[in-house]
């Protein structure tokens, strides 16, 4: 099952998505974060804004992902996690986080080794002190995408290489399934 997701992700990256220059993307994101810091002054509210931005992106990305791949409905949280990591992240960021550190079958971590948003970035001391999570937009994206899949989740950053940790870790806790009418399966 895991291999299947990896293959779907690789195939989608190669054929189904248009690519944009990496530097353009990361400089745009960097300027966005810097501007937010200037406007808000307080790192906690910047984190919240990034999360909101990510949420709006995530609700749209979920449908986009299903339009471009052959994914079926995921039967449980574990395969959802795999789909997010091996297909979603691979398609849109060309990086595949490792899924791990499961607790209770509904809480897991995404360990991101090489986050492209972090290239060239060096946090100033003030941001380090005040607790800025530079790539917090990713948490919002995961939260928004999971909500489109009718899972309410809490997503937050645990570790970040920009803060000096050895790897970046996003923790996802699926809190509950949102009520929905399940359509009869077509296949």
């Amino acid at each position, binding site marked *: 099952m895991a291999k299947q997701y990896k293959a779907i992700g690789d195939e989608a990256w190669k054929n189904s998505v248009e690519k944009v220059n990496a530097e353009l993307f990361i*400089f745009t994101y960097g*300027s966005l974060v810097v501007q937010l810091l200037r406007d808000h002054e307080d790192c906690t509210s910047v984190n919240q804004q990034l999360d909101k931005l990510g949420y709006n992106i995530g609700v749209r990305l979920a449908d986009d992902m299903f339009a471009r791949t052959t994914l079926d409905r995921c039967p449980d949280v574990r395969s959802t996690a795999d789909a997010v990591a091996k297909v979603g992240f691979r398609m849109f960021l060309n990086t595949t986080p490792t899924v791990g550190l499961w607790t209770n079958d509904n809480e897991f971590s995404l360990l991101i080794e090489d986050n492209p948003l972090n290239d*060239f*970035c*060096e946090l*100033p001391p003030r941001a380090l002190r005040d607790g800025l999570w530079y790539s917090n937009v990713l948490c919002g994206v995961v939260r928004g995408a999971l909500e489109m899949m009718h899972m309410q989740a809490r997503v937050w950053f645990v570790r970040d290489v920009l803060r000096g940790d050895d790897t970046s870790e996003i923790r996802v806790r699926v809190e509950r399934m949102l009520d929905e009418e399940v359509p009869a399966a077509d296949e």
Partner: protein
Amino acid sequence: MKIHCIAILGRHGNPIYLRNYDAHEDDVKYHYMAHTSLDIIDARLAQPTSSYLGHLQTVGDLSVYGYITNTNIKIMVVSSASNESPSVRSSQMRHVCECVHAAYVALVCNPFNERREEDRVQSERFDMVVEKLGQLTE
């Protein structure tokens, strides 16, 4: 061959960065050397050259090698004489200059970097890279 100093000067000849690897020498001496090398660089620029300018001048037992970027940032490396042939030394110096240039580009690309042309470089990551470069060729 030992690297004694790596200096970076801006477009208007203003010092942007100086890393002195000698504990006993004053920074002033290397500032002065970098500044006098500026005239030589200007003379060399009269003819079209590549980024790496090669050996600029020799002061006592120290040689100064220069490198200029497309944005007119000048990188200078001061090293003491060595036993290798000129071409080996030249390629080593070129390598050091290119690494400094790459580190400088990474610094400029940092979205939190708000320095303008005239400001000095203040970055831990840049300091670490230059620190390692200095030990590279000992």
